[in-house]
């Protein structure tokens, strides 16, 4: 069944490509490069050991990107996105045993895709966002570089310990926002936007597939953005079946913003889920602050609760530069055995777009 879907997808894309060849030559072409550096100093205290680390903030990693597009007659457009990240000491891979820096820095693929679009929507082919990616992460707080629903991006690699005895459970292994199927090699289609609503669907290797619905509306007194998705693991996982992911964010004109997220993964024996809430405030044009709380249940083990309290602050003195501060307390409430100590993580850094 899925093979048939793949074949159909490629036939559709081939037809689109053929149609493009048939239309007139390009009207407008552009090709651009952009990127950012996002570095921070991170302090972690797991109750037994405390250390400083100099990291690449995985909330929005250091990267660069090539984009290009070409306008054709009859509103046809074709574009490319090639985005690569390069992280030295990713913040989510630090742990107390680390001496010096992590191993050699390499390029990591993020996006390598092209798209074809017109008034009827946009089709994508290549490595890129699955339709569900980002559906647990809709956030209008302006503090996502400091803190957002994916709390493991900052201190995800630290192990919990109790009385100096380290467990095998990490921060990242005990909490997740279950943000759909991330980025994959896939074919994807996005509908045009109707009254703020848009839909998308994608299919990838091992018969993974997902569908998503998004909304973005400006009421004048507030902006609302929301997303929800259904993802299926296909044959890619022997334990995970599917994910329901959702999030919404409301930003009032006077700066107050509210964000919530819920995601649930159908998984053998455990069925973990995550809830997340955030209250933020944007003020004096250059400042944004937020407080958040999240709980992941059943991820590290059945009935384990991974709670996270977070504070984020972002100061943008110039439009291309942000300085931020983050504070997280990672807690683990185990169903079996005693609870390990909380892990406290503070991070200050800056993100510069070039």
């Amino acid at each position, binding site marked *: 069944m899925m093979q048939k879907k793949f074949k159909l997808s490629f036939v559709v894309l081939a037809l689109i490509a053929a149609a493009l060849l048939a239309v007139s030559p390009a009207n407008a072409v552009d090709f651009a490069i952009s990127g950012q550096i996002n570095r921070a100093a991170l302090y972690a205290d797991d109750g037994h050991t405390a250390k400083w680390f100099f990291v690449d903030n995985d909330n929005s990693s250091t990267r660069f990107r090539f984009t290009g597009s070409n306008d054709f007659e009859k509103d046809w457009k074709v574009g490319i996105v090639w985005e690569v990240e390069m992280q030295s000491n990713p913040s989510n891979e630090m742990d107390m045993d680390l001496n010096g820096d992590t191993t050699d820095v390499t390029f990591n693929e993020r996006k390598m895709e092209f798209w074809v679009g017109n008034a009827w929507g946009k089709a994508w082919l290549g490595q890129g966002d699955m339709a569900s990616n980002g559906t647990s992460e809709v956030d209008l707080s302006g503090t996502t570089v400091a803190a957002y629903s994916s709390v493991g991006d900052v201190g995800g690699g630290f192990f919990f310990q109790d009385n100096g005895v380290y467990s095998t459970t990490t921060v990242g292994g005990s909490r997740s926002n279950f943000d759909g199927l991330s980025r994959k090699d896939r074919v994807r289609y996005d509908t045009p936007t109707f009254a703020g609503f848009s839909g998308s669907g994608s299919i990838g290797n091992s018969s993974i597939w997902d569908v998503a619905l998004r909304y973005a509306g400006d009421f*004048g007194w507030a902006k609302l953005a929301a997303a929800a998705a259904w993802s299926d693991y296909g044959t890619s996982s022997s334990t995970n079946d599917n994910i329901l992911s959702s999030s919404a964010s409301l930003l009032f004109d006077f700066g107050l913003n509210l964000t919530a997220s819920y995601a649930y993964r159908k998984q053998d024996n455990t069925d973990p889920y995550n809830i997340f809430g955030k209250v933020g405030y944007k003020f004096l044009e250059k400042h944004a602050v937020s407080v958040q709380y999240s709980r992941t249940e059943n991820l590290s083990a059945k009935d384990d609760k991974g709670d996270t309290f977070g504070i984020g602050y972002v100061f943008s003195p110039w439009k291309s530069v942000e300085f931020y501060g983050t504070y997280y307390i990672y807690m683990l409430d185990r169903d079996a055995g005693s609870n390990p100590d909380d892990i406290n993580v503070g991070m200050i850094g800056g993100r510069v777009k*070039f």
Partner: protein
Amino acid sequence: MFKFKPVSWITLLISLAIIALLGCNAKPFDYQPAAGEMKEGPGVFTGKSGELNIYDSKKGGIFPKDSDAEDAETSGAKTAQTTEAAGTAAAAAAGSQGNAQEFKDFQEFQQWQEEKAKFHEYQQWKKSPEGSADLKEFQEYQQWQKSAKGSSDFKEFQEYQEWKKSGRSSAEYKEFQEWREFKAYQEWKKSQTK
């Protein structure tokens, strides 16, 4: 401690969707995911666009195609020649007929020739989702202007209507009209950012 059932959240999402639907006045806006993504907006070295334009067939770029560069030079020279010749003719017309209004219009026409590229950018912008939402707001502003009879803006608008009836109906003139709309939009945009 507490457990949310998926059904509860689905209900919440449906409620949000209903709220969104009820908000008939809601204008779509181009939400760009921020979490985990690259920072939007200007860059330290790349300026407002936040991108280093390697090539742009309209704006040029650091490595514009030779043929395009030649085209641009040729068209620039042609424009200069046309402008000069037209300027002479216009001065003569202004002198012989003493028609100040005509000459003013012509000056605007010259300005339009100079700002043609920007105007084409504006046309592209109008087609974008963000552009169409802003344009709608601008059109509402124009409606409001019309209702504000007696204001200097409205008088100017009436004068413009009169002038429009003077028989100029070429395609170029149509584009010129759109350019005036573009200029008015720029003024309005400036006033919004103050």
